[in-house]
């Protein structure tokens, strides 16, 4: 594994982002201006020089800002680790670019899971249906927002 750069004394101008998924390294040591991650406490913006943080992620949009370009990915869940040397690691279980989400299927999924939540009896079924509702409503707001 390549060793990580040491913490510089001055705040660097760019943030180095590693965005990894189980089956691919989506972004590897990419220099960007800012990323916005969907933490469980809400959308969190990360700039160079951010305080070191460990954040758990909920389903939502990750946006990567580079100059005037913004790339948006929908994440299922994961962790974001921000280090003192302005390196941000985002590890997600599943991620797709937002333009690959099909609105019709998302609506259908949302309706299905809401119905399952209503008719769920055991705690396990309720939990699974709740997760489905959460993910689909996040996808919905991702497409419309």
């Amino acid at each position, binding site marked *: *594994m390549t060793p*990580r750069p040491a913490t510089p004394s001055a705040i660097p101008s760019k943030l180095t982002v*590693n965005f*990894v*998924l*189980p*089956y*691919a*390294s989506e972004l*590897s040591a990419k220099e960007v201006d800012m990323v916005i991650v969907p*933490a*469980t*406490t809400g959308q*969190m913006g990360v700039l160079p020089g951010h*305080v*070191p*943080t*460990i*954040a*758990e992620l909920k389903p939502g949009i990750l946006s990567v800002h580079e100059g005037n370009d913004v790339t948006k990915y929908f994440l299922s869940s*994961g*962790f974001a*680790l921000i*280090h*003192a040397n302005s*390196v941000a*690691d985002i*590890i997600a*279980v599943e991620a797709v670019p937002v333009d690959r989400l099909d609105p019709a299927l998302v609506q259908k999924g949302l309706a299905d899971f809401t119905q399952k939540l209503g008719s769920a009896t055991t705690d396990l079924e309720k939990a699974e249906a709740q997760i489905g509702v959460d993910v689909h409503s996040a996808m919905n707001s991702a497409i419309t927002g």
Partner: protein
Amino acid sequence: MKSVKNIQKITKAMKMVAASKLRAIQTKAENSRGLWQPFTALLGDLPSADVKKNVVVTISSDKGLCGGINSTSVKISKGLHKLNSGPEKETKYVILGEKAKAQLVRDSKKDIELIITELQKNPLNYTQVSVLADEILKNVEYDALRIVFNKFHSVVSFVPTVSTVLSPEIVEREAESGGKLGDLDSYEVEGGETKGEILQNLAEFQFSCVMFNAVLENACSEQGARMSAMDSSSRNAGDMLDRLTLTYNRSP
């Protein structure tokens, strides 16, 4: 002579099959290498952590004829067991794969917690491994998980490796005593009720990511080892065939 020729054909065919399977899995394994690196950057890999409850997860293949890789994994697992035994310390095994099961059941039967086989029935994917990791975490009490597998360096080189995943309590302990994990406390932890809850989730996620990479690397090593084992047996069969042909032609 005919039988030797047939064996040569079979081993050549097995080598080709292994080569094609290797090609398919190799890209997956290389892509998954980025997965555990952020965790190691944050938490480090501390094989020397002194803990009470060790769990050795040995990854091996189900099928044989793959050279010596399974024996090396078992040797290392047994070595870890010996290294970590002593008063108040215990080591348990979790076995993935038939070959390690066969070897470890013979002398360490009482230390085996969980045995999982037929891992590669369906192509390996993250969902399957995370369910597996969940099972292990649920059923086994651990302070440190040591995953033993063969890391795939190239078609002819597989290095037995141990990846260590520590439980959150041990991570706290090591962070307090300074050293590599010393600046873990400087990290703000967002969300959740307590810091401990997030660290617990982080440790579980780390385990499933490290397992995923380990299982893929071991699968690659298995195919590579099978390729070279079959290659050398084809060559031996060829030599034997030549010698037999000469003897046959010489005798009246």
